[in-house]
């Protein structure tokens, strides 16, 4: 009664979900970065004027 495949599945899913959450956080970060870049461009433009 080893059932290593079940054990493997359990630990794989644990890491898959945690990485999924980290990826989700990363997406949030990227969206923020984009907004920040836009803001920067805006500031630079105004300086040129």
């Amino acid at each position, binding site marked *: *009664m*080893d*059932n*290593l495949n*079940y*054990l493997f*599945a*359990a*630990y794989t*899913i*644990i890491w898959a*979900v*945690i990485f999924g*959450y*980290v990826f989700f*956080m990363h997406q*949030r*970060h990227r969206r*923020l970065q984009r*907004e*920040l870049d836009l*803001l920067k461009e*805006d*500031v630079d433009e105004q300086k040129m004027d």
Partner: protein
Amino acid sequence: MGEKNIVRSNILLGLGFALMTAALYLVFIFAPTEEAMGQIQRIFYFHVSMAWVAFLAFFVVFICSILYLWKRAIKWDTIARFSAELGIVFTTLVLITGPIWAKPVWGVWWIWEPRLTATLVLWLIYIAYLLVRSYAAEASRGARFAAVLGIVGFIDVPIVYLSIHLWRTHHPPALVSDLVPSMLLPLLVSVAAFTVLYIILITRSISLSNLEAEVRQLKDARANQRRS
């Protein structure tokens, strides 16, 4: 983020990594194979750790919800929100790893047993918590409603557990106090590793959300400046 904060978060990351590696070693190499259940019992260590962290996360939601309604500081709402999110992530994992463990041991994926059922109800309550926030007309109202549910939901949990316990008295084995030391150590290290993981993830989420608020403020200020 200040210099001190960066140092602190790096220490936390290092600690998390070390603890997680130690936990993996203890779970897979150090811990003896359980006699009745075999290798599959090794799910237990992470399963229980995640259940603990989920409970901790929901407790944080409860405390921060009370503090938010009392003090009305946005930071309490932010902590409650991300703690609920993490709590749901870990409860989901508990609900997935539970059946994977149950199938080879009990021969079925799911039984309507107190702990399983109570965990499922808990999960549903906090899904509602996130939904109420996204369905509220304004963010401030959503925060208030979510706080109310954060309090009501957490108070409900022990009553849910008690009623389900009386409904189905089917005791699963493995209480922490009966564990032999060679199994207790892996469990404790796993719990510590997951607690640190929780702290890392929540501080990250909170600082991200603070940044978000700052960017939004700057944008509004810009827009006003342009108009004038």
